[in-house]
């Protein structure tokens, strides 16, 4: 087996392999173009696909420039982490203000007063938490109280990794607090509710799959857009949406990443992109995707009809500023204490 003529195939295949590898490696991986990067959170995939296409046309008509907007999606916290670690985001559109605060605090790439720099505190749209239940609502879920009842299984994502999970947590807490004005009682209520959670997915999307596709749980507290998306993707005949009498004013903010746009020279386009989010055209798209537009008059009537008037409370009004709110989810915070006590 060590005779000379047998060397060749081995060597040849090795060399061919290396040559092939070199060719592939040399193939251009990325082409140059004016590209903006929007680092967003999990459930906005469908939304920003529409927005980004519309913006490209809008910008082309307005300035003649070709701009493509790339999007990156994931759990809001881990998305913020990638921006902190150096993803070249021009704009961030995250699920909860504290995630943008974290970028501002840890990197100074975003100024601390970012919420004042956009209209409506950096909120081109808002949303609220409603309940997705099985068809016919067999467990008779009507309000937040029902979620803490013993025989109910609630599917919600981990508030540590998911902004949606944090909003659900805050909504439940805020509901209990507005009722009794007693923080201890509110804590106990939320603790009881989380005892009913059999699966804590890392992202809101994971929870929806668990509930809708895997058939686990009786109720999925979800943003309106997510609940309607489940209708569209999994069929209206399998689920119902229950709108509780009160719920939370969910605030997914947007911000410009100053340090990145200045380095890349994309400030003009990035600011144009954020401004575009507040135009009538974009506002109508938000409503079409079942988000609550900040300019209701820009949206179509039939889209607004699906977003009923309910009593919304702002979590800032109950728990003070966002630094305090975020402490619920920090290491050793309220969520940790509750899950420790729950076991």
């Amino acid at each position, binding site marked *: *087996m060590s005779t000379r003529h047998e*060397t060749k195939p*081995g060597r040849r295949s090795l060399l061919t392999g290396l040559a092939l590898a070199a060719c*592939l490696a040399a193939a251009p*991986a990325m082409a140059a173009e004016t590209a903006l990067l929007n680092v967003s959170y999990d459930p906005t995939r469908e939304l920003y696909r529409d927005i980004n296409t519309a913006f490209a046309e809008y910008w082309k008509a307005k300035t003649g420039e070709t701009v493509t907007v790339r999007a990156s999606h994931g759990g809001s916290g881990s998305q913020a982490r990638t921006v902190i670690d*150096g993803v070249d985001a021009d704009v961030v559109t995250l699920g909860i203000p504290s995630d943008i605060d974290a970028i501002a605090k840890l990197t100074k790439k975003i100024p601390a007063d970012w919420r004042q720099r956009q209209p409506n505190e950096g909120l081109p749209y808002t949303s609220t938490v409603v309940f997705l239940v099985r068809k016919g609502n067999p467990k008779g879920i009507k309000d937040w109280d029902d979620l803490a009842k013993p025989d109910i299984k609630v599917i919600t994502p981990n508030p540590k990794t998911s902004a949606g999970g944090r909003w659900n947590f805050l909504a439940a807490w805020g509901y209990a607090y507005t009722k009794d004005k007693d923080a201890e009682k509110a804590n106990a209520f939320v603790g009881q509710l989380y005892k009913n959670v059999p699966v804590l997915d890392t992202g809101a999307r994971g929870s929806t799959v668990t509930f809708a*596709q895997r058939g686990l749980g009786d109720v999925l507290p979800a943003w309106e857009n997510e609940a309607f998306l489940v209708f569209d993707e999994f069929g209206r005949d399998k689920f119902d949406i229950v709108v509780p009498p009160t719920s939370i004013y969910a605030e997914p903010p947007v911000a410009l990443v100053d340090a990145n746009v200045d380095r890349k020279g994309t400030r003009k386009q990035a600011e144009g992109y954020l401004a575009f989010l507040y135009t009538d055209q974009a506002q109508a798209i938000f409503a079409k995707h079942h988000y609550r537009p900040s300019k209701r008059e820009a949206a179509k009537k039939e889209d607004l009809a699906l977003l009923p008037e309910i009593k919304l409370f702002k979590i800032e009004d109950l728990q003070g500023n966002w630094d305090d709110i975020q402490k619920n989810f920090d290491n050793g915070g309220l969520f940790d204490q509750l899950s420790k006590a729950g076991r």
Partner: protein
Amino acid sequence: MSETLVPASFAAADRAAAPPASVVTEGGSVRWLLTGVAILFLALFLVLPLVTVFAQAFAKGFDAYLAAFREPDAWSAIRLTLTVAAIAVPFNLVFGVAASWAIAKFEFVGKSLLITLIDLPFSVSPVVSGLIYVLLFGSQGLFGVFLAEHGIQILFALPGIVLATIFVTFPFVARELIPLMQEQGTAEEEAALTLGASGFHTFLTVTLPNIRWGLLYSVLLCNARAMGEFGAVSVVSGHIRGLTNTIPLHVEILYNEYNFVAAFAVATVLAGLALVTLVIKSVLEWRYADELASGRAH
């Protein structure tokens, strides 16, 4: 040599398996029971998941399956994955050959430690493999400030994905070749050297032919792992659509968009790669069983 070797190895296998007398094997019913249990176990734990991937991919027909590949994002994921593998695998190939030459052909102090260190990435959690590069090259990391000042992007771009992939596939080639080369000893190389061949020439004409099948085998496994790595790459990728999504990440994205058919359809690319890998590997094993025998255990 291959022509004569194959029947010989079959004969050996037959001798081993054919029961000359019941003293060296179990009774017929026990044999069937054990075989049945083993096959059932494998079917349940290994084959069924694979079948599921294909069943789900074609759940809504062939057109729905193909639709997943009309997305430009799918193609950019495939392109990125090929690029990453094309850099990571040759790197590990060269490293593996060099390391196993040094380890197998020489005796030196601290060899066990060196082998253990080479093995280390095997048992390091993929998440940790990603994390270490974040700690090194992230803006908050050791070289973060330096890289930012010089405008070098490692994390959330091709270099970071390549590095994480190299890390997780680091031991594959070396681990396969070390026992193989140890088994083969140094006599043939010494003979060639005595006859006046140069060191490099000896390697090409004596060592390489001896290890080629083991080498190919290990490159295949290395490649499959490189293309399929999820945890490590997911930490360093940034998940930018059309730019830094590899095939496994694209599968996850589609899955999270409730596009299950497309998710499993793209997954069949990787499952198909796995199957091709297994087929080539099995063919190699049947034909060159003896050459590979010592290298199988890793």
